[in-house]
């Protein structure tokens, strides 16, 4: 069993929806739901949710191979600036490597992150596709 059950399960909301940690002390927002601000360390934080739409600001076409990557390479890994202003790293799918460029508008959709084949858990989470509806 390669995929732990609780490691993913306890964070599933942050993988199923874009959670932003808004710091009430320093004011900066950060991607992923956390107990404390990654900028200033304050525990006084509020978790809010992003709509999941934004602009692709940087990307790379990756052939880097880990176990289980065979059906999924090449991957497009990029940085997305959400409409709310926060940067999210993520995978971009449903687009050809030759077509992807900076500036395209993307939206977060649920996909398989990875599956512990043949008998283990499937991890689901958000990746980004060129937005289907403006």
């Amino acid at each position: 069993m390669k995929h732990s059950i609780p490691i993913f399960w306890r964070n599933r909301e942050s993988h199923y929806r874009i959670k932003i940690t808004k710091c009430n002390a320093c004011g900066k927002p950060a991607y992923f739901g956390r107990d404390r601000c990654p900028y200033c360390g304050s525990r006084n934080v509020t978790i809010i949710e992003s709509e999941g739409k934004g602009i692709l600001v940087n990307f790379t076409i990756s052939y880097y191979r880990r176990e289980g990557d065979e059906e999924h390479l090449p991957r497009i890994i990029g940085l997305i600036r959400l409409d709310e202003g926060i940067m999210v790293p993520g995978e971009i799918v449903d687009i050809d490597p030759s077509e992807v460029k900076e500036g395209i508008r993307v939206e977060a959709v649920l996909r398989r992150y990875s599956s512990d084949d043949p008998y283990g858990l499937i991890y689901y989470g958000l990746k980004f596709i060129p937005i289907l509806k403006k």
Partner: protein
Amino acid sequence: MKGFKVLSRPEAKVGILGWGAYIPRQRLKASEIAGLWGFEHSITKALWIEEKAVAAADEDAVTMGWYAARSAIVRAGINPQDIGAVFVGTESKPYAVKPSATIIADALNVSYKKLSTDMEFACRAGSEGLRIATALVASGTIKYGLAIGSDTAQANPGDVLELTAASGAAAYVVGPAEESVARFEGMVTYITDTPDFWRRDCSHYPLHGEGFTGDPAYFHHIMTSVKMLMEELGLKPEDFDYAVFHQPNGKFPLRVGKKLGFPKEKILPGIVTPWIGNTYNASALLGLAKVLDSAKPGQRILVAPFGSGAGSDAISIIVTDRVLEVREKAPKVEELIARKKYISYAQYARSRHIIRRIV
């Protein structure tokens, strides 16, 4: 033919608040499949199948169902916390045991206090889910229900079904008729034990009776359920503006519609299979979604899903004014059909995990 006669119409209190669709981007031409496996090329015309949608390697019934459901909820304009039931009809569950519905529900922030299950009845479980969610609303058990039909359809490589077996999802939020974009006028279901198509527990691919899947299965059950509905509601084919049928290929819905007395013009708007393939649990439901994308308020729609094993639902729906307010809020079926990239058979085999590998 005697079936269970619904004496009152509880479903008349219920309607569709939102509909959603999802079709993956990849397309495989039927002619390539036919050519690879030695089918004479005119078979694609005989079946009226041009190309089929193929889910990517990181997609499955859960991810597709999620997208369709999200669109349905957006159109419905409701808080997902008010959804009291989530049903996923699928015959391609990522887990044989572990519901897809709970993953989709948590991913969409649906209330934990709910009924939820995955259901199997070949291609009509999504429709069964629609009926059950409707009954739950009608009985006052829940306020809103979410019914999803989603499949990455399997077919034995080299079998004629491979020309059409495809991936897609459709979802419906049901609730009080007063809030609906299309209200239910009547629903009936006709089910018998008819083994036309099945998949054994450990089998990757289904088997089917070829010709047997026609008259004794598809045609008999759809025609029976539709006639049953029309008799109970006192309606005739002329009373309907659209007739949407389960569509394993492009020809069957035209044939069964003709047998029932529906003209081609009423059937064509709900046909999607020639361009995306047979999406199993999403088949008729995507046809319905396509009709809802353009139907006018006041129009009457017949939708008759069918599932092997076998059974058919017949549902009469009347579109309300509210459909105009929400139609543009999510991608339309035609937009999803138009979003496509052609792939090779090899890429299809990789995407759908049908190449034997050590994982």
